[in-house]
């Protein structure tokens, strides 16, 4: 009888152990479910980097799990429920429930022994795991899809900042380099600059490799130094070309546009009409003058050859200047990293009042707000301006609103007269603005405002 009693107690204890284990698993499943939900919600509320994206679910999980364990800890009534479920499942008419109570009270009456014996006989082949298998519940089934969704978001959602930068930390050298390389590639493809495109691809490869392998800024800097030398060598090999520093980039771009136009004229115009029309293209005329030529003295074939040569020269010059700018950027990037290191070593409190920001960015604070008096940045979101046709409208904004990109150069303006005319500057800005308007970076409701601004500048002229 004692053996029966011990065997029954073991079987029932095993059942209760299994139920407790299932409870633990259910608690962990619920905690994990809400942790993943939280992880999905966090990027909607705040901007986080991929490196920090793991923190939210882990924190929720760590905080939630003890609370759930406390709220759903195993109690006597859970034991009663488990035994009642066993009685129901095996049609024991509460023999298991009664037997468990007799075991706890160590009852020795004949009727109690009879109940224990009957329960023991009926539970001889009890397999708790088979009888009460795990049930994951809807939260359990949603875990895998949620995890996949979150991982997908982590790698594809632009709301997550690139890897390595935590909240409040400046982007690493690799990240800066990758951003720059991508923009440079776009520009090179758009403007047809083969050497720049090749250099940009090389830079992106270095950046990607650095981010994937966690390469230190120091190693990246040494690689960049090598690339910079290579670019300088390429630029020198290309030679000075037919253009000098006096020829602005804008002029070169205008010249390129005129060459395109001239080609069209040569194709379409009959007889000598193209020569009359060609005389309206100022930049080409300037180039002809520079080489001591005249449009009227050239026939159609000679003009075609001249235009081909001119186009190659312009493209080469633009490519060369682009490489030069790239070199300058790399130089700044390398200096910036060293500057930051110096700051970190020399001034741990981060006081950078004397030198100003090394990366050329304006810091948030008094005076950082565009269109406001210095020191009046309230930090509040500004409403859209009330744009009226024909009137100049000032678009207020502040640094720090939304995404922005660009290359910032630090330097003191040289005294003297500007080499660029106001018309050229406005036309250049307008082209840039139009290019930006075609991208998704400008909010839809502000596109008209920007367009109207440049139209108003033209009218003012």
């Amino acid at each position: 009888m004692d053996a029966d009693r011990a065997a029954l107690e073991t079987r029932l204890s095993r059942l209760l152990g299994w139920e407790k284990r299932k409870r633990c698993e259910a608690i962990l499943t619920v905690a994990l479910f809400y942790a993943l939900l939280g992880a999905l919600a966090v990027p909607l509320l705040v901007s986080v980097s991929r490196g920090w994206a793991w923190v939210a679910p882990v924190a929720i999980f760590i905080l939630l799990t003890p609370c759930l364990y406390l709220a759903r800890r195993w109690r006597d009534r859970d034991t009663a429920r488990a035994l009642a479920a066993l009685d129901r499942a095996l049609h024991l008419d509460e023999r298991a429930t009664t037997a468990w109570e007799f075991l706890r009270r160590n009852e020795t009456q004949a009727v109690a022994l009879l109940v224990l014996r009957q329960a023991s006989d009926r539970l001889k082949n009890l397999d708790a795991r088979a009888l009460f298998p795990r049930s994951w519940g809807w939260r359990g089934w949603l875990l895998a899809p949620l995890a996949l969704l979150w991982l997908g978001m982590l790698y594809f959602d632009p709301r997550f900042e690139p890897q390595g930068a935590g909240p409040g930390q400046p982007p690493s050298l690799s990240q800066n380099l990758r951003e720059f390389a991508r923009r440079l590639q776009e520009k090179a493809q758009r403007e047809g600059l083969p050497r720049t495109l090749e250099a940009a691809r090389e830079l992106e490869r270095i950046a990607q490799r650095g981010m994937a392998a966690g390469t230190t800024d120091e190693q990246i800097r040494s690689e960049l130094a090598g690339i910079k030398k290579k670019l300088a060598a390429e630029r020198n090999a290309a030679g000075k070309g037919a253009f000098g520093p006096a020829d602005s980039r804008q002029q070169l771009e205008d010249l390129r546009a005129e060459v395109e136009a001239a080609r069209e004229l040569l194709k379409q115009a009959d007889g000598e009409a193209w020569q009359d029309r060609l005389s309206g293209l100022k930049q080409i005329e300037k180039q002809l003058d520079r080489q001591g030529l005249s449009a009227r003295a050239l026939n159609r074939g000679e003009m075609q050859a001249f235009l081909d040569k001119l186009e190659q020269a312009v493209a080469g010059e633009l490519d060369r200047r682009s490489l030069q700018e790239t070199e300058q950027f790399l130089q700044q990037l390398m200096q910036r990293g060293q500057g930051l290191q110096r700051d970190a070593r020399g001034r741990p409190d981060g006081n950078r009042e004397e030198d100003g920001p090394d990366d050329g960015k304006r810091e948030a604070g008094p005076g950082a707000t565009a269109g406001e008096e210095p020191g009046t940045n309230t930090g509040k979101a500004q409403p859209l301006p009330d744009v009226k046709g024909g009137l100049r409208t000032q678009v207020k904004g502040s640094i720090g609103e939304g995404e922005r990109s660009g290359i910032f150069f630090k330097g003191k303006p040289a005294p003297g007269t500007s080499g660029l005319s106001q018309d050229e500057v406005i036309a250049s800005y307008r082209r840039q603005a139009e290019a930006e308007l075609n991208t998704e970076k400008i909010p839809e409701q502000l596109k008209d405002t920007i367009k109207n601004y440049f139209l108003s500048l033209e009218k003012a002229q």
Partner: protein
Amino acid sequence: MDSVEDIEQRIARAGRSFAEVKAEMARRIVGHEALIEQVFIALVCGGHCLLEGVPGLGKTLMVRSLGEILSLSFSRVQFTPDLMPADITGTNLLADDPSGRKIFEFQRGPIFANIVLADEINRATPKTQSALLEAMQEASVTVGGKGHHLESPFMVLATQNPLEMEGTYPLPEAQVDRFFFKLLLEYPGREELSRIADLTTAAPPGALREILDGAAILEIRSWVREVPLAETVKDYAVRLILATHAGPETDGSGVEIARRFVLYGSSPRGLQSLILAAKARALLSGRPNVSFEDIRSVVTPSLRHRVILNLEADAEGISPEKILAEVVRQVPEVS
């Protein structure tokens, strides 16, 4: 001290006796299997039953048959408004003793039987009703200042006619509460009616076999009280009782329908009745312990006369059976 084998034999004997009683009753009574079981449960628990049903459903026949099978004495009292307590309990009559002196001799009334059928109990005056109810409660009667014990086992089966309420004296709630079960006799179905016709219009069936005697009933009655009840099952019974209440005593376990329609919930006597009946059912089913199902199956006969409904329930036609069914449905086995 009893051994496990003794207990097993007892349980088997009780179960076998009940099965034989049922089989023998079926020879004379058509249908009413649940009713017969409940009457037998009340008998082995030492309780009394209030039977409610229209005339001609076989109430008297059932009670008389039960008396025959159990070889118990049986008496029937037809309650009328002019029935006096002495007509039930008996009275002292003037008689001559052997020496010729005049003495008072107690003449036993019909209450002195093992099974008493109190037909249409609500037709008698409250004074007469209370005399019967006192006998039910105390198992004794007092006549002329002298107490007389009633024979054991003693069981009263009182009947009520739910149709004719004119000139009746409805039993007060406190007195109804003393009945262990209140049982309703339902009208027989088509097949049952057909069988009744065959059974009662042909040659009368032979006499019923005696299966149990008074001593055996008393023995089973003592076994019933030894049936163990798990704390979990007892807690279920307690929560069921509390759930019939509308007030704060429900301990938050009240049921909405009870809160709305119940004026007074079940008394503690209802809980005693519920648990005892469940124990008897377990024993008669051949089990050594009480199950949740035992409790559930005796909720209605144990509590239907102990749940007092309010006027709103009357107006909406809500019956105690409906309230109890909802209570059983909503109260979980384990809290």
